[in-house]
């Protein structure tokens, strides 16, 4: 990443000026709140990425197994906390099942990716951390969607669920339409992304790699691995998480424990 094409700090700061015109237009349209939120968002993004950049430099320099695994664990915990809170669910009751699902789905695919890439050493931060980050980030959205959709549709149409359950359906039989609906709404965006990738937009990671100096074909190979991994781990996580959630949130009589849903999102 040296020579022509490298971005200097001062130049980048000047580049922030590309936001001036759009912000001015929003301001003139009377969207002052939006301008404020946008500025806060840009500020947060800058700070977070700067911090993570510095931290990753440190992590890469150390390249220690323990440190890498510790960082992975923190990413996993934060992602899991985020899933439950964004889906409006009880963090205390569902933390462990959700954590297990994400750990399982991401872990399995991560191992497969490490086997494919064969970095030296295998726990090399340069590969382990970004790959895990890509997988976790996508599992995060998938899990939030599937859980939020599932719990809200069951509570909205609880009478319909009861109608089937009390007529003799098992818990899973009566929940089947809700399970299918939730999985569909969580996985459809992924399918749409896969089908248009490369045609409409070049994926961010690939663009980054090419800009960073990689050969396009190499970048494409990485991108394919990443997309396959994302698809696999996201679907795995979503299904396992949903099934385990049902085990925790519905009792042996098939009745739902409404305390799993936080009051404000009910």
């Amino acid at each position, binding site marked *: 990443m040296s020579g022509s094409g490298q971005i200097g700090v001062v130049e980048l700061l000047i580049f922030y000026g590309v936001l001036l015109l759009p912000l001015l237009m929003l301001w003139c349209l009377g969207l002052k709140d939006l301008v404020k939120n946008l500025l806060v968002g840009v500020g947060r993004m800058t700070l977070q990425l700067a911090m993570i950049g510095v931290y990753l430099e440190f992590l890469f320099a150390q390249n220690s197994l323990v440190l890498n695994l510790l960082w992975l664990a923190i990413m996993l915990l934060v992602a899991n906390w985020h899933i439950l809170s964004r889906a409006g669910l009880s963090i205390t009751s569902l933390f462990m099942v959700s954590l297990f699902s994400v750990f399982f789905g991401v872990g399995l695919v991560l191992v497969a990716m490490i086997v494919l890439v064969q970095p030296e050493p295998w726990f090399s931060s340069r590969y382990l951390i970004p790959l895990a980050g890509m997988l976790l980030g996508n599992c995060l959205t998938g899990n939030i969607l599937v859980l939020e959709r599932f719990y809200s549709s069951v509570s909205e149409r609880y*009478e*319909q669920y009861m*109608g089937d359950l*009390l*007529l*003799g359906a*098992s818990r899973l039989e009566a929940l089947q339409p809700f399970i299918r609906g939730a999985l569909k709404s969580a996985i459809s965006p992924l399918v749409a992304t896969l089908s248009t990738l490369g045609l409409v937009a070049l994926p961010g990671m690939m663009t980054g790699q090419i800009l960073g100096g990689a050969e396009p074909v190499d970048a494409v190979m990485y991108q394919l691995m990443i997309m396959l991994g994302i698809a696999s781990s996201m679907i795995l996580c979503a299904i396992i998480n949903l099934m385990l959630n049902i085990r925790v949130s519905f009792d042996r*009589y098939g*009745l739902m424990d409404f305390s799993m849903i936080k009051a404000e999102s009910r």
Partner: protein
Amino acid sequence: MGGHPVFQLVSVGIGVSEKALLSGVNLTIGRGDSFVLVGPSGGGKSSLLKLLLGGFHLQAGEFFFMGRPVCQDSIKHLRSSIAYIPQQAPSGGESVADYLSRPFSWKAWSDRPFRNSDVEYWFQQLDLSIELLSSSLNQLSGGQRQRLSMVRGLMTGRKILVADEPTSALDDESCRKVTDLLLGGDYTVVSASHDPRWITGCQHSILVRDGGVSVVDNPIREVMKP
């Protein structure tokens, strides 16, 4: 089964979390009886009906079905012995045919095949046109959907009915058909209703109010009260 009552509640209390909705409920319902629960909305009628199907947790007391206490192990038997007709008519984009046949994919119904002749029979009994089968639930009127949920329950062939407001959306003609069919003596019926046309057809009336239940002789007066 012999002489055992179909349902027997002994000092039963139900409620959500700590708050008691009903307490001290004693009720015995025998084979062939028809019961109607009357009383103000929110008084616990629907909850009491759901309790009979294990759709509500017992807070206190004992609940027997056919002489056997209802517990986790017997809940399947209980639910697959009763035709439940819920208060909320079915809705959504599902087709009528799918709605009616879906229960036949459940394990509890696996010994019964889905027969078009059954559908035709019950549609005729309840004055529904067979052409509705290909429509989606949303295209039907409230009265049609209400009768549809009845067909779904009756197609099970079960003789015990738990029906929540079965006639609320029906015109006089359909209502007469429904009461003749369900209250004609073939079925054991436990129901909740505000509808005088249905209430007068039931043998026993129970007033559910102020956290308890009591027998009433003139239920229509209770319904008409402001």
